[in-house]
Structure formats: C-alpha cells, structure tokens
C-alpha cells in the first residue's frame, strides 16, 4: 500500500467531518428549539474534533511538514475529498436532519469497521469517533422517526428532504483504486461492503418514520476525487477567509 493512498483515504474521512461540521455549525443560534441548538453545536464539535484527528494523521502520513490546519485552510476545492452529500446546503431543519441521518448511518458502519483496521493509528481514531457517532445516529434516527410520523406537514417535509438528498447517498458506496488498496492492506473496508448494514439501518428507520425511499439507484458522484458541487467553493471562501487574508499569521 502506497502512503499516497493512505493520505487520500484519510483526507476523505477528515474532509467529510470538516465540511459536515461546518454545515451543522451554520445552525448556531437558529435552531427550532433550544435543545436542538445545543445538540447541533455538540454534533459539530464532535465532527471538528474528528477532523483534527483524521487530517492530523493525514498530514503526518504525507510527511511534507503540513499540519491539519494547513490541510483544512489552505487547500482549494479540487483537493477536497468529501462526499457531495455533506456539502449540500442546510435547507430547512428537515433537510439538515435527513442529510445527517443518511450520513450517520454510513459513518457509524464505516467507523465500526475501521475499529478493526490493520493500521493501529486508524483504529485508535475510529474507536474514539465511533462512540460519538453512535450517539449522532441514535439522535438523528429518533428525530427522523418522530418527524416522519408526526404531523402531515412534518411528514411532507421529511419525505421531500429524503427525495432531495437521496441521489447523493450512493457515492458513499463507490470504490476506486484507493479503496481497493485500503481494503487489500486491511486498513479500511471495501465501501460496497458497508451497503447492506446501511440499508438495514435506513430501511428500518424510514419504515418506522412512514417514509418511502425513492425507487432509484441514480447517484451523483465526484466529491471523493475532487469534483464538487458549486457549494463547496463558498464554504471554503468563508472557512478559509482569515488564513487567506493574513498569510502566515498565527491565531
């Protein structure tokens, strides 16, 4: 296994948590109820903490003297490796929640598998993160069920959110040469192997929520190789502003 493949894999993990953490943190002070303000800040905090670990290890593996902050704040969009799903705009609270749930279900399955990684550094990060993500999944699944099976309006909004985000879910299970190298070395699972677990989790929750997944396998893709939606550029413009405006300054 080449170090370049490991670096690629680690940035995929860290960029997912960074960009989703950014999106979730946009809710700060604007959530529908105080308990959600707290829960969303907490989720964002977990995701940013995981970013520090994944990108920190990526920088170490790369060995070019870059830091996690350099990776987060000084790469342009084409070098980001996150799923398109996580850069989707927040929309209403239902869209934010559905994006979170579909991601959490994958994230939990992925981290659970990574706890067995042949690379002990990867396993150590996964073991810490999987506990946090188990809670994210419990929370997002519970809310999807309650809102899906709530009022006519909440049901309608959750179904619309599901229809909207569904075409971005399939990218989680696509594999390329990097994934093959990771699987071969026992560092990470074959993405396709996570699909049955994800489908079982999602299927059960959607059924309890009285929601119906769209009957399509179509999937947008490109984030994992650096071809993003128009949204990522704006996220980075905001996120990287200080580091770009004051090059070399310490904060």
């Amino acid at each position: 296994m080449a170090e370049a493949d490991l670096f690629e894999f680690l940035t995929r993990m860290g960029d997912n948590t960074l960009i989703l953490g950014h999106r979730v943190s946009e809710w700060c002070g604007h959530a529908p109820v105080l308990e959600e303000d707290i829960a969303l800040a907490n989720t964002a905090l977990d995701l940013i903490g995981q970013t520090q670990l994944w990108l920190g290890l990526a920088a170490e593996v790369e060995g070019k003297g870059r830091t996690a902050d350099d990776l987060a704040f000084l790469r342009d969009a084409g070098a980001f490796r996150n799923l398109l799903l996580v850069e989707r705009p927040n929309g209403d609270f239902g869209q934010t929640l559905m994006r979170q749930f579909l991601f959490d279900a994958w994230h939990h399955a992925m981290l659970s598998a990574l706890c067995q990684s042949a690379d002990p550094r990867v396993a150590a990060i996964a073991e810490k993160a999987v506990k946090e993500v188990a809670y994210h999944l419990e929370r997002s699944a519970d809310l999807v069920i309650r809102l899906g099976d709530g009022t006519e309006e909440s049901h309608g909004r959750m179904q619309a959110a599901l229809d909207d985000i569904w075409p971005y879910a399939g990218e989680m299970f696509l594999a390329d040469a990097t994934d093959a190298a990771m699987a071969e070395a026992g560092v990470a699972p074959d993405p396709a192997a996570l699909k049955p677990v994800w489908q079982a989790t999602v299927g059960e929750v959607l059924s309890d929520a009285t929601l119906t997944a769209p009957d399509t396998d179509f999937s947008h893709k490109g984030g994992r190789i650096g071809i993003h939606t128009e949204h990522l550029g704006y996220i980075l413009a905001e996120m990287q502003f200080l580091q770009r405006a004051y090059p070399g300054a310490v904060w």
Partner: protein
Amino acid sequence: MYAQMVKTEAKRVKSREEMTPEEAAFQDRIEAGEKIEPKDWMPEGYRRTLIRQIGQHAHSEIVGQLPEGNWITRAPTLERKAILLAKVQDEAGHGLYLYSAAETLGVSRDALIAKLHDGSMKYSSIFNYPTLTWADIGAVGWLVDGAAIMNQVPLQRTSYGPYSRAMIRICKEESFHQRQGYDILIKMCLKGTPAQKAMAQDALNRFWYPSLMMFGPSDKDSVHSAQSMAWKIKINTNDELRQKFVDQTVPQAEYLGLTVPDPDLTWNEDKGGYDFTEPDWAEFYAVLAGNGPCNRERMAARVAAWEDGAWFREGLMAHARKAAKRGVAAE
C-alpha cells in the same frame, strides 16, 4: 449586566412596620441567609421581579449565541473553531438552566420566549453590538464574559434556591469562556503581526464602553436596586461591580499592550481603584429602546428561528400524542 434595570414594582422598600407578618417572616429568612424554595411562600413582587431578572438573563444567553456564532464558520484554526463551538454550546446550556429556574416560579419557557419576541422582555444591551472581526470574539470572551462573571459570582449567594444553583453551575463554565477570549487576544497581541494587533486594539475600542454599560446605570438612587438588594436577588450595586471590572481589566489590557480608549483613566491612590469615564448613557438608552446597531437583526433572527421551527415542534408533539395513544391501546 445580563439582567439590566430589572423593575421591582416597588415605589420604595417597605419598613418593618409596614410589612404583613408573612412579609416580615420572609424578610427574616432572607436576612438569616436561608434559601427560598419554589414551594415556599414569597411576596408577589419578589416572584415577579425574579421572573423578569432570570428571564432576561436566559434571553441574554440565547441571543448571545448570535454574535459569537457569527464567527464559528470563519474561525481561523480547527482548535479555535472547536473551542468556540464548545463555548457557544455552553451559553445555550446556560439558557436552558435559567429557563428551568424561571419555570419553578410558575411561568413557562414558551411564555417567556413569546415576551422576548414581542419586545416586552429585554436581553443584555451588549448583544446588540456586532462582531466585525475575529478579535471581537476575543474581546467578547475577555470583556463580556468577564463582566458576566463579576455579576454572577455574587449571585451564587442569591436568596432564591433554584437561581443560586443555576448560577453555581454557570460560573463553573464562565471562567473557561473568559480565558478562551483572553487567550485569543494574547496570541494576536503578543505573537501576532502588526495587523493582528491593530485588529485587537480596534476590538477593545469598540467593546470597552458597551462592556461598562452591561452593569447598568448608576443605581445609588434607584428604588428597584434597593428592593432587589433587600431581597438578595441583587448583591452589589451597579457602580461597585463596574469599578471592580475596570480595576481587574485595565492591567489585563496593559499586559496585552493595548490602550483602554479612555484618556481620563487614572489610578486613584485614595480609593485604591481607577477613575474612569462613564459610558455614554444616551447611547445605552438608545440601544435599550431598540436602536443599537444590531437590535433588529438579532430579534429577526430569533423570531425567524422560532417561526421556521414551528412545524418541527408541532411534529414532535404530534408524534408524542400518537405514541401515547398506541401505548394505551397496547395495554
């Protein structure tokens, strides 16, 4: 402070002779340092004043998420982002403790929020000022949380049990808040570039007087303060706290190499404290009246969050009703 100019409805503090036996017994308990608990008898004015004070404090925590939240997505490093997220999460938690304390007095959180939204309840004037640069996030932690601590530490000894206990929990977190703010400025002033230091000076220039306003106007003649102090729901006068704040903060500014924007600031050997210029009280009253730089935006953001979230809250309640029905049917 986070609760500024809380009215007590009293024209003046009652003398012992004017008190009913219940009122006198209540006052005895306060003076003996006993805690008043929700089920205990209390004067109606005490209850209503506390609701206003705790409610205003809770609203301040909630509205206070907005100026700091304004920089979470632009925090300069992952660590700063994580720290700021943790801080703002704490503030929302403070709001939750305080609404719960207010609810023990027989008012619901939703009713208090409705009064915030219709403008009949206030929040601290400080949150109507904008956070324009990253240094402002440092200044808010250092000065705003610093001023909050000044007020909240003595309130741990307040007479109302649930309020006192909420303050004890909150104070544990506030010192971290102030430290993270000051630490931002240490980095910028002592290790930063000239541009960063200028940014920090600009933040101090803009936040100094609004921070002094947080303690409210001089209250030596205010009957509201006298009654609140007799009830021990206010422990120090506004001027005492403001003086303490200035005395504590000036050396911290000096350590940073920043200049307090007050040409008349001088050490007064006799009183063992600084003489300083009072804030512009006309500006303070203008901000309270709704004419601060961000009043409209802050309220619009809170009202929009509430209204846009109505379907969410209704959805959860509808689900709970369905689940309860199913539970009954299953028995």
